[in-house]
């Protein structure tokens, strides 16, 4: 399934690239794409354990840049 999030206060382009790589490294994530300009994260993921995966994504985002907030679109 596909889920679209906004990355609020994503101000650093390098962080966007790092966030994208880190989310792609989560095993349950099939594909993640971060657009720095539109502040959007599109994640393709397995349907099970959605809440857990979402928690992991949030952790990864906070780890790279603690100013960024993940919000479901």
């Amino acid at each position, binding site marked *: 399934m596909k889920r679209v999030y906004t990355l609020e206060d994503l*101000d*650093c*382009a*390098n962080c*966007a*690239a790092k966030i*994208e*790589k880190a989310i792609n490294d989560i095993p349950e994530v099939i594909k993640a*794409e971060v*657009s*720095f*300009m*539109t*502040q*959007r994260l*599109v994640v393709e993921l397995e349907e099970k354990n959605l809440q857990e995966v979402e928690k992991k994504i949030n952790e990864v985002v906070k*780890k*790279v840049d*603690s100013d960024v907030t993940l919000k479901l679109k």
Partner: protein
Amino acid sequence: MKRRQQVKKIVIAAILFVMGFIFSKDSLASEIMFLISYVLAGYDVIGKALRNMVKRQFLDENFLMVIATFGAIFLKEYSEAVGVMLFYQIGELFQSYAVNQSRKSVAALMDIRPEYANLKHGKEIRKVSPDDVKIGDVIVIESGERVPLDGVVIKGVSLVDTSAVTGESVPRELEKGDKIISGSININGLLEVKVQSKYQESTVSKILDLVENAGNKKAKTEQFITEFARLYTPIVVVLAILLAIIPPLFWEGAVFQDWLYRALTFLVISCPCALVISIPLSFFGGIGAASKQGILIKGSNYLQALSEAETIVFDKTGTLTKGNFTVVDIQSEKYSPHELLRYAAYAGFHSSHPVSKSIREAYKEKIDNGLISSFEEIPAHGVKAEVDGHEIYVGSKKLLEKNKMTSPQIKAIGSIVYVAIDGEFAGWIRIADEIKSDAKQALKDLKDLGIKELVMLTGDTKAAGKSVAKALGLDKVYTELLPHQKVSQLEHILQETKSGKVVFVGDGLNDAPVLARADIGIAMGGVGSDAAIEAADIVIMTDEPSKIVLARHISQKTMSIVKENIIFALGIKFSVLGLGAIGIATMWAAVFADVGVSVIAILNAIRTLYVRR
């Protein structure tokens, strides 16, 4: 608010920094000024660096900046330490400002989301969300309001500005019976509209969907920059460490302080920021500039591909031609063109054949039914009628022959309609599909913009296809193709084109498979067909071929700005790294290679937003 405080902080830090220079060098007063300035400019960077250290994010730019400036302080190069931190902060501030501005201006370009609809229920009018309006409901649109849903005008006359949706700058006058598209703006009158589609399926929703998803398909160059950035920082940091350790250990006479200074210049240039920001920004600007002109591009990958296009394949009907049949020529020796047309229009008044219809449309004047005393339709041949006491035949050459009349053989493109008056051939009318007014210029411009081959595919006859191709100056034309043959013909062209990309342009009505098969599929004529929008990579809202020229121009301009930025940023960074390694470049040069280059690259990238012809 956050940004304003940041600006205040930086201004105060900068004043203290300048004061540090006013006091005599190495005096206590000067050092205190520098110290306060450093702490003021850098405390939040230091805070972030500490947090990242805890999280083991050692390649973070904040952390590296702190190491570089601490190193400078250790070397007693106070002014350099403050300078690096101060300029780094100014650069960051500028970046976030520039990015925010471009986000806002692109959002403004696409600000076509209607907020409400005035739903009419009997005599009562209520403001509701466009989502709550159903097909068949009647809505009222006042002057100045945005049209919330697609529909048909049932009452009122008004000028409507469709520029946000179609890129067409001339407002159109709409009246009862005309279609109205959501996202356009009602300029002066009051309109009542019967809704024809739900909000999710309305034009405005489709456009917004398309634009919002555009950022997530990245161009090759963008992907390359991301990969490059991933490797660049670790490599520069490792080189910096080696530079600080190896020469002093193995090289007699090498002073540790000198080599540490060189290593610190490396750390200052260790962020690939100039590229990671300016490249996506350029593509974003290019896509934004295109959407302002009614050209919707589904991703920066297609923008880049379009700049590399070498062959453009066009569908004929509806793409290069208008797709409607009109009278293009009237010839007669005995009668004036108007007289001949008048007789033909009267004779075909009761006929529903497309040819009769186009003759009536060309005649324009009102037809007096009382003058027609008899009418007969002769299937597959034409019509016979008695008009104002004259016997008229209108139809094929065969129709005249059958009724024992001779007529010359006319060789011309399109359908020739023979007219006989009172038992004698009187003249002929030529009916053809009209070429769009901007088509010829558009094709010429595309050649000027580096397209090598222009090809046309059509299901039409050889004669009709060839004549259009000749009039427009196309390089190749393939005629009498069935829809599936268009796909195989395109595949053949794809195989033959070795280097560049192949574009297919169609009106999207029945060429979705061809649109999907091409490297870049361009659907013209807006959001008419869902299948076409799904299959196409670029959607042009109007049906003007000249928009393809504009799209190509924007793509090339964007790519040249992207290339300028890559060459410029890498060129400066690598030269300063090289000069830094041999001890020529100072930390000031390094700050320029980092912050200065970012600022210049961003300013250059923003130019894409304003590309026009």
